[in-house]
């Protein structure tokens, strides 16, 4: 089995520059709303201003009469969405319930819910007309405050998900124990590119969309299901995606709204959400309260852990994530209990945000570990090593690969972990308190189904195609590299085409699986192309006529006969000998369902912070993040993942917090001036390190995922460092300065 996974790491080229870097920095790259579409009109959504109730009256007359307006849609006049009436779930996903049906009826589920769409000939006219829509409501009492509704916490789908290994209460009887509550507030994805779509009906039953999506095939499927259309009648393009962090993983009401607007008016409709609408229409990381208990022997052997999470969801869907999962396997602990509950509130549905679940869960787990280490008077790294899980204690099986110890070592050395004074509040620099902290992160690694095609032309151009999206990690670059390496063909003659639903099906870009899943398909099609070229060489190339396929060797763009090494032919000559302009192959790569191994990526974060003793201002002064993500295909794009993850981690730790005024159920800081993300001045030099040892099981490249682990755990490293600096334990994110003075 392993042999099938031949991939020559040693000849991997130096980190390649991004194939689309120049297009991105020069503006040549076209994002969803930038595609030129003739006669395009502009859609602007009107949001509700109450959080719960019904629309009593919606007056669109003034909007309809406003200059340039060609249509105003509400639940009263919108075209029907056949998939809605079927009562099913036209936008499938792991989220269960009834996704919000836009313009379906008068019911209001959250403040900011889209209730009308204005379509006009210019954006400005549409914005103005949208401001003229007048709505009267029968408002009902709403609840948006998770803390005021703790009694309403339920198990998702009404079924217990409690996990118990050994004795759930074991930690309570341990000689040293910690019990604490940790809070992660709402965080909003806020990619730079606003969610956008251009929807154009080519015929009554045929539609083309340019969309911001992390999955062209999943968006295609959603539209097919919503409008009951066959696959070939739904064309989705997303050649460039300006970030997502998970917000573009599912199809949202605004996308259906644009399709309805285009249907109703007969014109292509471009719809770009406002920044404020990014807070209500495309998900967010849910507010989560976590209770953690942990106990150990005096010498640091953890006896038991208990991790309970309560998170929020909407009233119409149950969003769940793996908040408590890593507690079950990250450390070798005999007694573990986890529980996960949700509270439905009058808010929009949350969704996966970078490091979904684990980013939240790791804050509790990795803070509690740190608290325990101080209670034991033990180095936090030593405590982690003492309870290191060599095999997966949850599933009782080996890891496909785990080099977390190497990662700990690399990071500790780089930041000078052992040179610090371990005593809290013992270090100072220029009048600021200094502190060091660390944490661990993990996220599942996997391989799903994907297909790709490869087309080699007589002029030597090789085009690889697959319907995958690239929301920024550098997918096209990495796939070009994998194809180049596997086929033995120069990267500058290869183009990787993506972001088009008519291409062979590729995965949705989420959960750190693209390199593994898509890379496996590219690897498979590269091998298939070689095989095909070998067959063609035998068919028509001089000296190969009696060769057997097993005698063929592929090297550097040539086929070589292993029985007579002087007999060689270049790939392009093979095409000539066969009088072919091009040769094309398509391959499927199947998902890996190996029950023998547990597959995870791991990360380690070390940070140094400075805290002003008077003002409480916290500066992350150094960050060292180490990834055990298998073989690193491209150290440049991988380092960019870490830089992005650490930057997001600084945001999560120190400043990001969506604030709702519960009196209205309305966001208070729904703009980039008030919702703070780190600016350059908040981000220190980041050391990105890689263990860079291949995983022998997961895929031919030996590459696990990078995206999530770059963020997971980071916030705890910061709060742990803040504790070391100040002696103050902050258990509620973000660590704004008011919590430290």
């Amino acid at each position, binding site marked *: 089995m392993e042999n099938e996974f031949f991939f020559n790491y040693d000849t991997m080229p130096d980190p390649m520059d991004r194939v689309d870097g120049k297009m991105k920095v020069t503006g040549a790259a076209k994002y969803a709303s930038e595609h030129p579409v003739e006669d395009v009109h502009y859609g602007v959504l009107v949001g509700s201003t109450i959080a719960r109730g019904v629309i009593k009256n919606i007056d669109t007359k003034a909007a309809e009469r406003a200059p340039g307006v060609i249509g105003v849609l509400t639940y009263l006049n919108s075209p029907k969405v056949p998939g809605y009436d079927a009562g099913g779930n036209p936008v499938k996903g792991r989220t269960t319930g009834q996704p919000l049906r836009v313009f379906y009826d008068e019911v209001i589920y959250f403040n900011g819910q889209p209730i009308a769409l204005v379509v006009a000939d210019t954006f400005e006219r549409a914005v103005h007309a949208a*401001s003229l829509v007048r709505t009267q409501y029968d408002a009902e009492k709403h609840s948006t405050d998770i803390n005021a509704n703790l009694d309403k916490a339920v198990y998702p789908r009404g079924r217990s998900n409690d996990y118990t290994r050994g004795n759930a209460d074991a930690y309570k009887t341990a000689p040293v124990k910690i019990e604490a509550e940790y809070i992660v507030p709402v965080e909003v994805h806020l990619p730079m590119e606003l969610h956008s779509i251009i929807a154009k009906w080519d015929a009554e039953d045929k539609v083309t969309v340019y969309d911001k999506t992390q999955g062209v095939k999943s968006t295609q499927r959603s539209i097919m299901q919503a409008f009951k259309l066959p696959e070939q009648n739904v064309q989705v393009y997303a050649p460039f995606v300006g970030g997502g962090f998970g917000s573009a993983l599912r199809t949202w009401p605004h996308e259906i709204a644009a399709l309805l607007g285009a249907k109703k008016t007969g014109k292509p409709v471009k719809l770009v959400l406002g920044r404020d609408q990014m807070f209500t229409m495309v998900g967010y990381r849910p507010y989560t309260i976590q209770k953690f208990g942990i106990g150990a022997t005096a010498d640091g052997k953890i006896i038991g852990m208990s991790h309970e999470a309560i998170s929020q969801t909407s009233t119409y869907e149950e969003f769940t994530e793996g908040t408590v999962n890593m507690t079950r396997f990250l450390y070798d602990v005999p007694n573990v209990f986890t529980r996960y509950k949700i509270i439905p509130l009058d808010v929009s549905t949350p969704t996966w945000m970078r490091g979904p679940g684990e980013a939240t869960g790791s804050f509790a787990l990795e803070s509690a570990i740190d608290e325990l280490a101080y209670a034991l008077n033990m180095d936090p790294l030593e405590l982690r090593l003492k309870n290191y899980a060599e095999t997966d204690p949850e599933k009782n099986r080996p890891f496909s690969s785990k080099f977390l110890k190497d990662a700990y070592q690399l990071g500790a050395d780089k930041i000078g972990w052992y040179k610090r004074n371990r005593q809290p509040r013992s270090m100072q620099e220029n009048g600021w308190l200094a502190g060091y902290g660390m944490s661990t992160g993990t996220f599942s690694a996997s391989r799903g189904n994907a297909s790709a095609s490869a087309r080699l032309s007589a002029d030597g151009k090789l085009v690889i195609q697959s319907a995958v999206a690239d929301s920024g990690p550098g997918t096209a670059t990495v796939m070009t590299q994998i194809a180049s390496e596997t086929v033995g063909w120069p990267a500058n003659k290869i183009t990787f085409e993506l972001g088009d639903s008519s291409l062979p099906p590729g995965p949705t870009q989420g959960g750190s699986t693209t390199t593994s899943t898509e890379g496996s398909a590219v690897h498979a099609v590269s091998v298939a192309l070689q095989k095909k070229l070998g067959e063609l060489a035998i068919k028509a190339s001089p000296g190969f006529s009696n060769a057997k396929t097993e005698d063929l060797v592929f090297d550097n763009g040539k086929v070589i006969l292993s029985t007579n090494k002087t007999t060689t032919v270049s790939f392009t000559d093979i095409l000539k000998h066969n009088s072919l302009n091009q040769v094309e192959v398509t391959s499927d790569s199947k998902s890996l369902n190996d029950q023998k191994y547990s597959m995870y990526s791991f990360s380690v974060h070390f940070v140094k912070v400075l805290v002003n003793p008077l003002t409480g201002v916290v500066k992350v002064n150094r960050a060292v993040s180490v990834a055990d993500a298998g073989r690193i295909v491209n150290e440049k794009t991988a380092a960019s993942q870490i830089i992005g993850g650490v930057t997001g981690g600084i945001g999560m730790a120190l400043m990001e917090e969506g604030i709702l005024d519960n009196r209205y159920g309305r966001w208070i800081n729904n703009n980039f001036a008030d919702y703070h993300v780190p600016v350059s001045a908040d981000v220190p030099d980041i050391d990105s390190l890689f263990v860079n040892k291949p995983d022998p099981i997961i895929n031919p490249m030996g590459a696990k995922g990078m995206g999530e682990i770059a963020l997971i755990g980071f916030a705890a490293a910061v709060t742990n460092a803040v504790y070391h600096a100040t002696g103050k334990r902050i258990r509620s994110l973000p660590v704004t300065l008011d919590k430290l003075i």
Partner: protein
Amino acid sequence: MITFDYIKPSANKAAIDAIMKNQNAMFIAGGTNLVDLMKRGITTPEKLVDINNLPLKGVNKSNNILSIGALTLNSEVAEHETVVKQFPLLSMALKAGASPQIRNMATVGGNMMQRTRCPYFYDTSMPCNKRAPGTGCGALHGYNRMHAIFGMSEQCIAVHPSDMCVALVALDAVVTVSGPKGERKIPFASFHRLPGDHPEKDNTLEKGELITSVEIKENNFSKHAYYLKVRDRASYAFALVSVAAALDIQNNIIHDARLAMGGVAHKPWRLKAAENILKGKPATEASFRLAAQMAMQGAKAFEYNAFKLKLAPNSIIEALTLASKA
């Protein structure tokens, strides 16, 4: 669409006349604040009088007086050699504001006239007495983390967001305005006002009055000055609390002092009593603590901004310490 007229006169009088002729006409300078407010439907002028052609640009010093034209860009003032050397407090405050891009558009007059950043002022579906008099104050019992601890009323607890103005009030600047009745000078401390029963009025400028320049007298504070801005991230965020501190120290004794705070009131908050306490005292932490204590008299907090009662005095101590060491 909400249409509006636009003119760009090149004489002060023409600009002032244009404003006097239309109840809903407004000056526009860099546009970094006004255009945002127009886009959100918070301010809806019928006529914009673009003042960028008026002769109000430049920084000059003569007879011990620094004069800054109202149209001088925030970035130009911040980098001006005389300002950097002789009025470093002003330079520091300007550099702490907004972002380089915004400072390259923003003018001194516009900065003084910028409106509050209270979220209830910005969301037209929420109550706000400043935006829509009589609708109530959304912040009073709402999310008021950024809000005032001094000088507020039941009607309004918003703060003035400017950094530059905190330095200017500390430096006893004087505002020159030109209006239909001619020219007048307004001491900086009287330019902005407290909300009282009329929070819709941010300042004491009368209809048609145009800010033409701001003047600062030469002083002995250039050696020991510091503008401390405490905020939620290192740049591009409004102050939770800011402190303009300037000391005239001779033989380690504070001969004279200037102290003002931002982010704490409806106007830049001058701390005269605290200044007086410092005079004649040694430049030590003990003196700074006394001043901080004095500065906080009469402070009052709300649900989410109670931390300012501690952050403000701590910031004063930090700013005075940094100024004394500067």
